[in-house]
Every structure is written in structure tokens, then in C-alpha cells.
């Protein structure tokens, strides 16, 4: 541990925002880490944990950008620790890591994301059609396959301003991750349900103002706004807000 602020090409200044449960503000602690070519930020955090502060808490698993465990905020921007190379960050500044701000802290960089799993349970599950043979073409599953790429890192939930700056919105807003999951189900050619009413009334999709930060931070490059949220909004328009259709249907 060091308070040094000198610039050294061989030393990385790693600043970790640390704290216990209930300490949302936390405290910045600086570590000096040997720079290694090609290292990612997770390497630096694990070096600090292994050599300087054994009780530094960080959640990680695959270190290959596929498990989504090491989601955090690097220099204030939501990213995966294992997919962010140190050499891609400004060399003249310390690298600062803080936990995801939308979720409460358990310890240091580990946050409580259990709310997401509760929200997930509310989505009407896959319901197979019984009137169709189970055969389909690749073109029928392309859209669903994109949604299935999600690794549940919850970076999109973290950056979404609807719940990031007002956590009280969580009970009435499912968040981008679950708009993606719902789209994946709705796009399945053998699924019998239409989840537009769920998206409008329980998932609160109309609270989204399509500012696209979820798409910007997605490590799987899922086009969340274009391919999940906007098509859902358009379906809701069809079913609930189109006065011409309402007049035709007589409802």
C-alpha cells in the first residue's frame, strides 16, 4: 500500500474504492502494482489482493469475459475488470476502480446483485406452442440468438440512469438486462406468449428514454436499445396506444 503519486512507467497506481457493507461512499486506497505488458485491470486487482491486501474483496471467475462476475467501474465507467487492458487507459493517471454504483456494497468491489434474480423470476417463462411442428429456419432464431449472448454481468443495469440515480425505481423498472431476456423469449419461434403487457405494466419499459448507455457498455455488443427495447416499445404502441387500431378493433 502506498500514497505515492509519482509517475513511473513500470509502476501502475491502482486506486481501489474500498468499504464494508453499508459504506456506500467507501474510501480510496492506492496500491503500486508492477506494470506488465498486456495486463488487464483484474490482474492488477488480484496482484494487490495477493501481495498487499489479502482481505481486498473482488468477485471474479473465468477471466475470459464470459462469466460476467468481475463487473465494476473503471475510472468511473462500467466495464469488466478482465476485459479492460491497462495499456488502453490513460497512462498519466492512476487507474481507479469502484464497485457498481446501482447496487449496494457487500464488501469492497463486491455488490449485492440479488435484486436482478428476483426481477428475473417475474418474467413469464418460455411457453411452447402446441400447434406447430418444432422446425424452424436460421432466420427465425437470429434475433433470439443475439439476446442469448448475454452473460449477465449487469453492467447495463448498473449504467441505466433510471435505477442508478433513483434506486427506488427498482420495483417498477426491470432494466435493460430483462428487456433483453424478454426479447429473447418473445423472438423464439416456438414461444406462445406475447409479453408486451408485462413489459408495459410490470417491467416499466416506457420509463426508458432510449439514451443507449446500456448498449454502450455491453461487453457482448448486444444492440440492446435497437434490437430489444425499441421493438418492444413499438409493439406496445401497436397494442395500447394506436388510436387507429383501437378504432378498428372497436376497443
Amino acid at each position, binding site marked *: 500500500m502506498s500514497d505515492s503519486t509519482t509517475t513511473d512507467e513500470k509502476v501502475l497506481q491502482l486506486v481501489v474504492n474500498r468499504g464494508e457493507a453499508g459504506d456506500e461512499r467507501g474510501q480510496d*486506497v492506492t496500491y503500486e502494482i508492477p506494470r506488465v505488458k498486456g495486463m488487464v485491470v483484474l490482474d492488477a486487482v488480484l496482484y494487490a489482493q495477493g501481495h498487499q491486501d489479502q482481505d481486498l474483496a473482488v468477485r471474479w471467475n473465468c477471466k475470459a469475459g464470459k462469466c460476467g462476475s468481475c463487473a465494476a467501474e473503471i*475510472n468511473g465507467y462500467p466495464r469488466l475488470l478482465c476485459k479492460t487492458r491497462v495499456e488502453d487507459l*490513460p497512462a498519466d493517471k492512476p487507474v481507479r476502480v469502484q464497485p457498481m454504483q446501482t447496487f449496494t456494497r457487500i464488501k469492497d468491489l463486491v455488490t449485492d446483485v440479488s435484486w436482478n434474480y428476483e426481477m428475473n423470476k417475474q418474467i413469464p417463462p418460455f411457453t411452447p406452442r402446441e400447434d406447430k411442428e418444432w422446425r424452424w429456419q436460421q432466420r427465425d432464431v437470429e434475433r433470439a440468438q443475439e439476446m442469448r449472448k448475454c452473460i449477465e454481468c449487469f453492467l447495463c443495469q448498473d449504467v441505466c440512469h433510471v435505477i442508478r440515480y433513483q434506486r427506488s425505481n427498482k420495483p417498477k423498472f426491470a432494466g435493460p438486462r430483462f428487456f433483453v431476456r424478454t426479447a429473447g423469449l418473445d423472438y423464439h419461434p416456438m414461444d406462445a406468449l406475447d409479453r408486451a403487457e408485462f413489459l408495459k405494466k410490470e417491467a416499466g419499459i416506457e420509463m*426508458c428514454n432510449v*439514451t443507449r448507455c446500456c448498449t454502450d457498455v455491453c461487453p457482448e455488443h448486444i444492440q440492446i436499445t435497437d434490437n430489444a427495447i425499441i421493438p418492444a416499445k413499438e409493439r406496445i404502441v401497436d397494442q395500447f396506444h394506436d388510436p387507429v387500431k383501437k378504432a378498428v378493433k372497436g376497443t
Partner: protein
Amino acid sequence: MQDLQTRNQTFVAHVGEGAAGRTARTDDWWVEPTLVAVGLVIFIIYSTWAALVGNNYASGPYISPFYSPLIKIPGLEWISPAIFVLWVPLGFRGSCYYYRKAYYRAFFWSPPACAVSERPKEYQGERAGVLRWLPIVHRWFLYLSIIVLAILWYDAIRAFDFDGHFGIGLGTIVLLVNAAMLTFFTFGCHALRSLVGGNQKCFSCGMGGDIRYNSWKIVSVLTRQHPMWAWLSLYMVAIADLYVRLLAAGVLQDPRIF
């Protein structure tokens, strides 16, 4: 400990602490919303002036896209003809999914950028008031915009007609490029994409699935480029108007290519 506290003040900007624009980001996040705000304000100022001035909107075979179709209502000649036209593109762009992102970020700071705090308020998003009607309004303006676009293509083709003789001037090229850019913008519209390929669980299961799938793929290519075409077409319209205006005012001479 003192040093750590100093560093906290330097770096830490936690969420939900009141003011807008608080962030722990260390990059120049403010550049994009600033450029968007400046770009939109410049266009709004120019287009408002050009629409209200009511003169110099046609020269030779050319007509400014701000004034096409040219509508003159008897008894209301004192109103600039552009007023009867511009509400269509204004409504289309104002309700566009891309422009919504742009002005929510640049003007309303909701949020100003990703992971940058917004004004503390009881957030309703697009459930609030008239905002819930934006998607359906956008769809109606799409239909109207396609009609206006057809007229702009007619103007571009008519720009080859120099007193009954085929010709190509720089203005012909300007109006053609303008119509093409507006076409790429209009046909990349998210509402159009949903109309051709949305509400469809299975492209292969019903009648016309091939047509819908192929149409959806083509529109999807343009949709991915929607922000680029939004900006290029916005400024190309202004450039086309300015070019015709300078010709009509006698400031420029139209170079003939053919």
C-alpha cells in the same frame, strides 16, 4: 489518512448526491453532449431564419427543400410557405429515437452522459405526459415524411430540366445528394424497421415471410447507421437551402457540369 481524504475529494462522485453532472469518470464525457447541443442549436437558428424569411427559395430549376412543396394559401400570403412544410420534418426528427437520445442528453441532461448524474427528480421517463405518445406520433410523421421525400426526389429530378433542355448543374448534384441522404435517414427509421419486421415471431411460418425478412435486413443496415444519416441529412438540407438561397440572391453563379 489525510492523503486518502484528499483523494476522495478528487475522485469520488457518488450517485444520488444532489447535483447533475456528478461522476467519477475521468475522460472528457462532456465533449459529446456539448457538440450535439452546439450542432442542433446552429441548425435550429439557421432553419428558423431560413423558414421565416420567406424569399430567395427558388432559382432556375432549383427549389429549396425547406420550401418544397411550395404551398401558398390565398389570404395567408404573409406567412412564409416554409411554415406549411417544415412541421413534417420537425415532427419526424423531434420524435425520432436517435434525436430523442441526442436531446435528452444534450439539453435535458437526462442523463448528460453514461454514468454521469442527472437532475434529481421524480423520474417518469417516457411515461410522463405527452412523451408516452412519441412512438405513435413518430410513426405518423414517418408516413408524412415519405410523402415529402417523394416530392424532394421530384424536385431533384426536375433539377435536370434547364428550360426544356437536359443539363446538370452543381445545384442538381446538391439536390440529388440531399434527397439521397434524406432517403437513407428516413428508411433507417426504427418505426419503419418494426413495421416491416416487427410483431413477428417467425419469418418462415407465414405468408410473405421472405419479403418481410429481406426488407427487415435492408432496413436494419440503415438503422445501424441512423445517427450518421441523421446528422448528414440534417446539415445537407441546410446546405441545399443555403446554396439555392445564394443563387437566388445573385451571390453565386451555378456552375454547369453538362
